[in-house]
């Protein structure tokens, strides 16, 4: 029998297997990506290098927010061999139990997932071959007591991390703070990994994307025992971490520090702005806290509950988010609108008719400047009535509607009743009522000036944030325009954001500002003025133009407010001081503002008496 044909069976067999293998290899290596991903999972560590955040400097170049090196005590469970818990706890200065509790807490922190290969049972995300932080964010002093002993505890090692450090214990509400990202933030932005920090408030939050810099990624080949062997593919896919750019703020940290000191023992705020640029020079929110208290998750865990439960709300950025009735400083705007509308002239006089509204004892104002000086309430009833009720419609209600909406437009042009497009978070719009607002309250054509007259003197429905109040001073100092108030002067080599380079103009002609400024000067320098305490007693003759305000407060003592700018001819600083429950504006707010101006313009305060009086005052009950 001839079996030669059987060679074909063998040949076909061999070729078939060869072909099948080639097809399979083509599928595995070229078409299907999953094995490549699997290999990366197995053999590559994608090591993220988190750069330090951008440093922040004040307007004079003082580094106010920098980075400090901290240390995480890391561990990999698989590499721990016979951990002597007692000795380890002793090195840490912990109890034995707390070491065990910490291990359990770490596993719990990682959460669980449903394993689809195992009937969707809950399994921990924790993996014993991955590094986790046993203790986070230790200072050099803390790690120094532990590090020398670490070689006795294989599986534990130290890792460097960087956290914020604040040169001055001031400006907490400006800078904000950082804390660990949550799950949602990780899902939303793939930049973040578990354990990364994110800006939570203030500049840190607003400029998060710039400040965080660019993460570097190193691909490292790791062995089955999780040792790092070499850069993957000689590092051709690696990227270098880039620190965020340096930030230059408009803040003058010494002025900020001084403001916070002056406001000690008081609730309220100070906002100082450079009128020519819109840069915020100081933004004091009192009471405040030392920003160093909110550095690192350990500090936050300790201090945040205290701060959030404090009834004086130190975490609440009052200058940006508190909405107060402006009180008498609102009269400046009423005057401007009256002049622009032509319903008054600088020479207009109205009697101080206390039958209309209460006023303090002063002679009737024969002109606008004196009305400002005296802060005469009946005068501004008359002015506002003229603005609102111009007699354009027969019906007094329809007339008031037209008048109010016109008035509302003017107010909007001062940046009121709307949120500034500033570089801060948590800004509030305040409230400037329009006809729709009152229609809702009283019904359409059911209200007139007499119904809403308390807005004349900045009471009633009108609400402003202190930032808006300060901005009013800027507009007056600039005679009709402002830049949106902002913190950041420049980011790296770039200037401030484009929206801060747009000049906003008020609807008032610049000539109408002259009598107002003169009135504000009289407030401070002419006898009978309400803000005489704002005078600066020095030879440089810095002329302060200001306006006092006393905000009626049904809950308690009135709030004191003073808004001003200086010097009169070339304004360099516009400022508002708002002190809750301090009573009359001229008594406490005006001198505080003058101290701030003196500090900013001359770098030192000569009138120690005045300073001492303010420092010692307390209006907290």
């Amino acid at each position: 029998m001839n079996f030669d044909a059987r060679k074909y069976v063998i040949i076909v067999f061999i070729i078939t297997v060869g072909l099948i293998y080639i097809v399979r290899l083509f599928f595995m290596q070229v078409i299907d990506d999953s094995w490549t991903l699997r290999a990366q999972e197995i053999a590559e560590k994608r090591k993220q290098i988190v750069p330090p955040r951008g440093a922040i400097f004040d307007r004079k170049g003082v580094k106010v927010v920098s980075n400090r090196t901290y240390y995480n005590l890391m561990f990999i469970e698989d590499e721990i061999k016979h951990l002597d818990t007692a000795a380890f706890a002793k090195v840490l200065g912990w109890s034995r139990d707390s070491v065990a509790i910490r291990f359990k807490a770490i596993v719990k922190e990682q959460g669980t997932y449903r394993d689809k290969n195992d009937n969707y049972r809950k399994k921990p995300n924790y993996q014993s071959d991955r590094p986790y932080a046993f203790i986070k964010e230790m200072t050099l002093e803390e790690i120094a007591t532990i590090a020398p002993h670490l070689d006795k505890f294989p599986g534990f090692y130290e890792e460097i991390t960087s956290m914020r450090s604040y040169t001055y214990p001031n400006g907490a509400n400006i800078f904000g703070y950082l804390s660990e990202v949550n799950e949602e933030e990780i899902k939303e932005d793939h930049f973040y990994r578990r354990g990364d920090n994110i800006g939570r408030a203030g500049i840190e939050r607003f400029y998060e994307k710039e400040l965080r810099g660019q993460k570097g990624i190193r691909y490292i080949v790791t062995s089955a025992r999780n040792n790092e062997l070499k850069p993957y593919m000689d590092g051709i896919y690696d990227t270098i971490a880039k620190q965020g750019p340096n930030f230059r703020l408009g803040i003058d940290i010494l002025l900020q520090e001084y403001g916070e000191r002056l406001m000690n023992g008081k609730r309220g705020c100070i906002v100082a702005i450079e009128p020519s640029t819109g840069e915020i020079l100081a933004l004091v929110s009192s009471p405040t806290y030392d920003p160093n208290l909110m550095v690192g998750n350990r500090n936050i865990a300790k201090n945040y509950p205290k701060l959030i439960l404090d009834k004086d709300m130190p975490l609440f950025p009052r200058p940006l988010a508190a909405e107060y009735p402006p009180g008498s400083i609102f009269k400046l705007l009423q005057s401007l609108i009256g002049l622009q509308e032509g319903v008054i002239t600088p020479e207009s006089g109205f009697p101080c008719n206390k039958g209309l509204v209460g006023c303090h004892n002063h002679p009737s104002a024969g002109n606008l400047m004196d009305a400002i000086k005296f802060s005469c309430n009946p005068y501004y009833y008359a002015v506002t009535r003229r603005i609102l009720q111009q007699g354009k419609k027969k019906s007094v209600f329809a007339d008031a509607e037209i008048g109010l909406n016109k008035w509302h437009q003017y107010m909007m042009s001062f940046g009121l009743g709307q949120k500034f497009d500033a570089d801060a978070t948590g800004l509030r719009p305040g409230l400037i009522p329009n006809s729709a607002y009152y229609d809702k309250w009283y019904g359409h054509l059911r209200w007139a000036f007499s119904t809403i007259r308390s807005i004349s003197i900045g009471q009633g429905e009108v609400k402003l944030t202190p930032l808006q109040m300060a901005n009013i001073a800027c507009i007056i100092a600039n005679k009709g325009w402002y830049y949106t108030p902002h913190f950041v002067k420049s980011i790296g080599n770039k200037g401030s954001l484009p929206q801060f380079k747009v000049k906003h103009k008020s609807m008032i002609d610049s000539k109408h500002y002259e009598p107002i400024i003169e009135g504000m000067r009289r407030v401070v320098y002419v006898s009978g003025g309400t803000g005489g305490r704002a005078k600066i007693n020095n030879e440089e003759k810095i002329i302060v133009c200001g306006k006092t305000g006393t905000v009626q407060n049904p809950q308690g003592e009135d709030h004191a407010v003073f808004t001003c700018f200086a010097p009169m001819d070339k304004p360099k600083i516009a400022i508002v001081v708002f002190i809750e429950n301090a009573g009359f504006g001229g008594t406490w707010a005006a001198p505080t503002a003058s101290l701030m101006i003196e500090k900013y313009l001359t770098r030192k305060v000569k009138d120690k008496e005045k300073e001492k009086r303010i420092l010692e005052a307390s209006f907290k009950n």
Partner: protein
Amino acid sequence: MRQGEKLTSHLDWPLLITYFLFLIMGMATVYSTALDPDHPNLFDYSQKYGKQVVWLGVSLFLGLMVFLIDSTIYRKFAVPIYLSTLVLLIIVLFMPPINGARAWLQLGGFGIQPAEFAKTGTALLLARYISSLNIKQQNLNSVLVANAIMVVPMILILLQPDAGTFVVFTSFLFVMYREGLTYDPLVLKLVNMIPGIKFKQTWVGTHFIPIMFAIVFLCIVTLLLSNNTITFSFLPGVSIPGFFGVILSLVVFCLIAFIFLRFISTKRERRRITTVIIIAFVLSASIASSVNYLFQGLKKHQKDRIELFLGLREDPNGEDYNRNRAMAAVGSGGLLGKGYTNASVATIESNHVPESETDFIFCPFAEEWGFIGTFILIVLYMFMFLRIIMIAERQRSRFNRVYAYSVVMILFYHLAVNIGMNIGFAPVIGIPLPFFSYGGSSMMSFSMLMFILLKLDSQRSHVLQ
């Protein structure tokens, strides 16, 4: 050797060159896998590549010796060679176990695996026995004797235990099949025991071996694919149910086989081929269906076992660890590979794939050279196998032919199982990749197999055995 004839005359150069190509590729892969940056010298004896260079040298020296010796001695001494390998296989059973197997014989500083050399011994004795048979002697006796020659070392190897080499020994079944020694007499005897049946020959019995292998292969592929839906990353939205895919591949394979066989067959055979292919298709389709049906009916834990064995079940850190790592290494090579010495999964240093320089050496090769590399590698092996079959078929002596078929089937088995376990087509049983894997015994034994074949072939014209 005849007077005036050069040593290299009648030498089969294509085979020898392929062999050397494999040596170079293998050496390069061992070097890159085991590379220690502190000892980059290829000839550094403290490193695995340094040792492999020595093994290469020894193997080539042995090859030269083989060439100097007249080829007739292999037939003459087949029995002593076979018996001495058996003795070594027995001795090794009394050696201390290494990695759970008594497979190593320590000679001085070197370890030798007798199982590797038993393949050569068995091939020689089988060749001698079959060549001594009368062509008409296809009786039960000769089948049993031939099987005994194969089975005795197999049993000894199983005692070590060494599942890989055990499986490789079944390659001799194909050799016997080629020579007509199939289980036909056995099957006939069994079938004829049924009253009223008197066959002279059964088709199943004659082709028992390839049919058996085809069925096993078909079953595995069916199980692998039937549970999945086949999707294509380049054809989004297109998906084929797994079982349909199996039937489709069967149709394609039958068509290819049909076209191929029509080319090589005579007119007379064509009708028969058509019938055979149709029967084969119907049979395999029904086998695939029943395997699929049976599998679906299995209990969960039984399914689990099978799925795990086939690599269908992800258990990356458990029993499936090696295969999962190996497949990741191979699959991550991509089209062009990561580049020489750039393997990240399969190196001794990273150790994600264990034994990456021996049994899993295909991993670093595939990772570094990608599909281009693995394609060339398999094509080169295919070329080598077909070349050896060609050599086998041109022998005048039946001894030479049987021996040559033994060589090709041993090599083919090693390739199929070794690469199969790297791509999820075979269970993980440790056998080396011929000419590639680090290790003296396998390198020497494969080289001996090859050089004896080359020597026999070069003297085919003047020896009639």
